[in-house]
């Protein structure tokens, strides 16, 4: 106890006094067209937008109680970081609006702050604990991770992966190769020309609506969630569907049959033509194959 | 163990149905067996306690796989060997083998009255063996397993098992005759 009090007093004495009120931000630095922009903010929000200028600009507000905004860079690497005092009891969230050269690689880390990225053409790597992650535009590659925050990648035309623990993961407009997983959150994917999609949950439901590119592969696995695949009537693929204790509903071909000698277990393998491959497995959830 | 077979299978059935008290009964009846095996195979008293706990937690979790084809103790012994060996595999990736010398006193204190001098000397000498030689010796010469079974569990070739056993016996003979 004594030690902590002593340290707090020292900290107050040495460290620059934190902002007593909300503080407006308006700073900019030159940056290269395809450099790295790294952002860290604990709470509040981070909104990153690409533009056609060779500079990074930060506007928005620094939350009350924050120590300062660290905004540094060499052109190829720019860092934007909200620094909190070590002994703060309460700090308000900071809302950062950041413009970056459109070709930048964007890396954002937050705790509870929501992350939004739009109009960035470079790769994006976003990580939050409880914040929500939203990506628009057409990044070259995406990677998003949260613990409880939801993830929505609106234009997932690029290869990428998104995973959460309890948050829902939604990928829209997929036409590349993607992975999406959540332990208990729902995973949903839409896209008309999916070349490879690997979807996994433990208890979350999985929903896929769209079509496969020629030779495409869709792989959906869950333990207790349900799997719903909405596919074009003309889908040509080899299907491999199993559930241990759930039901299989199929609008494409034959009905499932029991396969296991000892326990329950249903398996359904059939082909609607050469090309794609669709695998859907659930341990206790239902699997539905429906025509769009 | 001392629990009659029918009483034992009652306990197993209740434990399989989720009865923790019944599982405690099984624990009381078999802990000495599991602990002895962990102690001899690990050659380290603190690790042996940890492993013993792991074994029973695993046993509880996997009780469903026990179908009464063998005695519960036999099933538990196999599980124990798996736990010890997999712990050993995991450990080997991160540290050199644990030197047992600091724990030898624990072996001595385990049940002094019941242990004549030679038995204790032998326990200490076993603990000081190189790990693989120790595993093979304990399984073959104390537990009475066949080489083929040991090879299957350890992932070693039968010839390698035999070489380890040979080495263990040679080292132990030297210790005991000195």
């Amino acid at each position: 106890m004594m030690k902590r009090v002593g340290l707090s007093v020292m900290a107050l004495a040495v460290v620059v006094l934190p902002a007593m009120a909300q503080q407006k931000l308006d700073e900019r630095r030159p940056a290269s067209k395809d450099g790295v922009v790294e952002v860290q903010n604990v709470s509040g929000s981070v909104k990153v937008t690409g533009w056609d200028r060779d500079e990074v600009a930060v506007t928005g507000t620094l939350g009350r109680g924050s120590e300062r905004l660290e905004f540094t860079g060499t052109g190829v690497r720019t860092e934007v970081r909200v620094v909190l005092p070590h002994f703060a009891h309460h700090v308000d969230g900071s809302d950062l609006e950041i413009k970056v050269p459109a070709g930048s690689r964007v890396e954002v880390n937050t705790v509870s702050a929501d992350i939004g990225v739009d109009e960035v053409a470079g790769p994006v790597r976003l990580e939050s604990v409880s914040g929500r992650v939203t990506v628009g535009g057409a990044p070259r590659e995406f990677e998003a991770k949260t613990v409880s925050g939801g993830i929505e990648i609106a234009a997932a035309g690029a290869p990428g992966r998104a995973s959460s623990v309890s948050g829902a993961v939604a990928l829209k407009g997929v036409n590349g190769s993607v992975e999406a997983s959540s332990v208990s959150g729902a995973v949903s994917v839409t896209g008309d020309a999916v070349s490879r999609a690997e979807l996994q949950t433990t208890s979350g439901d999985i929903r896929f609506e769209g079509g496969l590119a020629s030779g495409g592969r869709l792989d959906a696995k869950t333990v207790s969630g349900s799997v719903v695949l909405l596919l074009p009537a003309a889908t040509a693929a080899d299907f491999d569907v199993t559930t241990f204790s759930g039901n299989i509903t199929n609008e494409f071909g034959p009905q499932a049959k029991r396969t296991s000698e000892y326990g329950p277990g249903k398996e359904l393998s059939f082909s609607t033509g050469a090309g794609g491959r669709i695998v859907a497995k659930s341990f206790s959830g239902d699997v539905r194959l429906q025509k769009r | 163990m001392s629990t009659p077979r029918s009483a034992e299978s009652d306990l197993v059935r209740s434990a399989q149905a989720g009865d923790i008290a019944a599982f405690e009964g099984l624990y009381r009846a078999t802990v000495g067996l599991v602990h002895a095996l962990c102690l001899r195979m690990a050659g380290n008293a603190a690790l042996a306690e940890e492993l013993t706990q792991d074994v029973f937690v695993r046993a509880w979790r996997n009780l469903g796989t026990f179908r009464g084809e063998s005695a519960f103790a036999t099933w538990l012994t196999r599980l124990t060997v798996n736990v010890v060996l997999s712990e050993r595999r995991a450990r080997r990736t991160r540290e050199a083998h644990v030197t047992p010398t600091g724990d030898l006193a624990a072996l001595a204190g385990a049940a002094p009255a019941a242990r004549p001098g030679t038995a204790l000397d032998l326990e200490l000498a076993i603990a000081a063996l190189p790990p693989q030689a120790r595993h093979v010796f304990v399984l073959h010469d104390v537990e009475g397993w066949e080489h083929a079974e040991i090879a299957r569990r350890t992932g070693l070739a039968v010839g390698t098992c035999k070489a380890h056993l040979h080495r263990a016996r040679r080292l132990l003979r030297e210790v005991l005759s000195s």
Partner: protein
Amino acid sequence: MNCQEFTLRLDDFVDGTLSAAERTAAAEHRDQCPGCRAAEARVSLLLAHAASLPRAVAPERDLWPGIAARIEKRNVLRGVFGGAGRLRWPRLGASAAAAAALVVVSSLVTAVLVARRAPAPAPSGVSTGVTAASLQLTQVRGTYEAARTQLLAALAARRGSLSPATLKVVEDNLAIVDTAVHNMEQALARDPGNRELPALLVTAYRQEIDLLQRATRIPARG
């Protein structure tokens, strides 16, 4: 047979695993060679001592409370009120958790690949129902359990720095995966030849390890 040959066969001789012809030859040599006779006597004495070691050695302290705590934790996880109870974290050294997790993740990946490629189980009369996939699973399970224990310990070491809300999400989801693993293990025990279960089980293992890894890297105040 000379002394060198006898020494090479000594183990098999005392174990009774030599062929009849070799056994006779070895016995003949022993009967006329005092040195080898003494060697055989020493091994036999050693084996007699080994066989007479107590089969049971009670631990110095009662280990049941520790086991009960871990079991009850699992029970809470398993029960209808899953996630309502606080997890008890094992108090173990947390070193090298990340390294172990890497090992497990890569071996899980291997297992998934193997499980996928595993051919249909041969129609065997063996009651254990062992398949290539289930064998692989047994190996993976050990690694998974070891990494899980370490990561739980690593998480325990820093759980004070996590927010209660995040901790709850982590614990609730660990409970979800544990329940899933438990249910599948039970199903696999009833239907050991099932070709699909090992792959699904490994998927759940991997999700748990991923979750734990993520949780151990959550920044402070998260």
